[in-house]
């Protein structure tokens, strides 16, 4: 391809990028000005921007509580994911009787979307007494198959000689995992953290089902409840959206490459 006339491509891509970014710009603009909630025609530049809607979000609704719940649940999910997935992936790198069966079970579990399990998941969590609790919110997400295979891919790449040497040195299995495998798999660890964090942070259906009352609501649930109280009548709703989107966007910008690779490895639902 001759790299001569590239401006039509830039034009087309510019249009596409603009269309994709307009919703962001629009919500950001409204969160600092509150126009276009009632005013028409809409203006392109923000007039009289101010940060008071963010103050409203902080005080008018239990935003801090929602934030806390989301953070705690996500922390549990990320920690559990790292632990459970690394353990499981390490086990899967060893030969053992029944390994085929386990892998088959895991692969077929991958075909069961969470949405197909909501009724029993609710009943199970109820029987466990974990409804309306942060642990109950975190539990279904504590291990995901994509992440197990991410670890497994990384562990498989570790030379057997290292493992054998460690065994001969008398290290126990979990020590091998901790001292040999994980330090060599920082990339897999990072991918695990990012994917499990995003899935937990964005999760809406499960909190909607498992939480009653305001005490334990997470951010997505709080956002949706806030919406149903106030409809579109205040800029605070859009400030809430901006605050809720910020971590996801920040994480994406910080770790783009890893994000993209993690999400596309084996295809996933975000």
């Amino acid at each position: 391809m001759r790299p001569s006339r590239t401006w039509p491509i830039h034009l087309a891509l510019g249009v596409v990028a603009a269309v994709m970014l307009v919703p962001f710009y629009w919500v950001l603009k409204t969160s600092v000005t509150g126009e276009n909630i009632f005013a028409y025609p809409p203006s392109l530049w923000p007039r009289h921007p101010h940060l008071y809607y963010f103050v409203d979000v902080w005080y008018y609704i239990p935003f801090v509580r929602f934030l806390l719940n989301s953070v705690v649940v996500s922390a549990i999910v990320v920690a559990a994911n790292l632990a459970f997935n690394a353990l499981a992936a390490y086990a899967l790198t060893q030969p053992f009787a029944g390994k085929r069966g386990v892998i088959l079970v895991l692969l077929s579990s991958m075909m069961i979307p969470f949405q197909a399990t909501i009724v029993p998941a609710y009943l199970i969590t109820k029987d466990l007494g974990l409804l309306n609790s942060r642990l109950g919110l975190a539990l279904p997400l504590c291990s995901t198959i994509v992440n197990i295979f991410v670890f497994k891919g990384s562990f498989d790449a570790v030379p057997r000689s290292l493992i054998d040497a460690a065994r001969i040195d008398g290290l126990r299995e979990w020590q091998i995992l901790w001292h040999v495998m994980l330090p060599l798999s920082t990339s897999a660890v990072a991918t695990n953290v990012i994917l499990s964090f995003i899935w937990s942070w964005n999760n809406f259906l499960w909190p909607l089902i498992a939480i009653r009352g305001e005490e334990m609501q997470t951010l997505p649930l709080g956002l949706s409840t806030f919406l149903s109280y106030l409809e579109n009548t205040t800029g605070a709703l859009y400030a809430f959206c901006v605050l809720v989107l910020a971590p996801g966007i920040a994480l994406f910008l910080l770790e783009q490459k890893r994000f993209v690779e993690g999400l596309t490895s084996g295809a996933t639902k975000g």
Partner: protein
Amino acid sequence: MTYARRRGSGFVWLFLAPSLLVFALYRIIPLGWNAVLSVERWSPFRPASFAGLDHYEEMFFHDEVFWRSLWNTVVFMTSAPIAIALALGVALLVNAPIRGRALYRAAIFLSYPLMPVAVGIIWRWLYDEKVGLINYGLISAGLISRGIPFLESFEWAMLAVIVAAVWQILGFFMVILLAGLQSIPRELHEAAAIDGAGRAQRIGRITLPLLRPAIFLCLIIGIINSFTSFDLIYVMTRGGPNYATELLITYIYRAAFTLTRFDYAAALTVVLFVFLLALTWLANRASGGEAGAVEAAE
């Protein structure tokens, strides 16, 4: 060697236990539980009684909302080919040797990792009849004279929701197709160019066939997405107006948690799962089985 033999592989099951427990509790047991519940008459207040295929009979013969939601799910699936076609075009553009390519890629992919709830709220407002940007654009372009209440109108709601869904998934498909594009060896294109093949021919004869696995992967993801897209619909329309955007998954939620008919919802879930499996199996077959392992995890 004695170390290995003495150690044995007992630790393996210990290591696998936590993950397997989570999957057993929240994937495998629910599957079975759904099936069992769907043939029972059960509620939290009464003990179970066997109901045979009553729920299925009600679903297939007496429940219009079920058929409506099934139809809506199929219609919603058309968002996949549309998104794939658009993403293909964008991927081809981004793949060109231009500067700032990473910037474009980031800008277009940005919509994917976002919370669907927030995305739904943003689009709800963009579609607003009086102050929405979309109506403003349409009116300014002279296409309509007054705002269309997109999300409240029976005719437009589904289309509106599909547009929002396409917007969110476009970046993801683009990235998958881009990876596929970049795995096509340049020599093929160069050889074809030397042989006199034009750009369109090269795309049609070389690129597209080699992209088949990636395209089918996107198709399968899109199909799974249309079965699981609860958040967006719930926030934008709640399944209305008048079930115009009620997908099977939102109907399941409604049956289970609004109408408290857990047994009926379980039957609906069984149908959803069977349908999903059948479609992805078909798509996998049609792609020649090259689409690879696909995850439907949350």
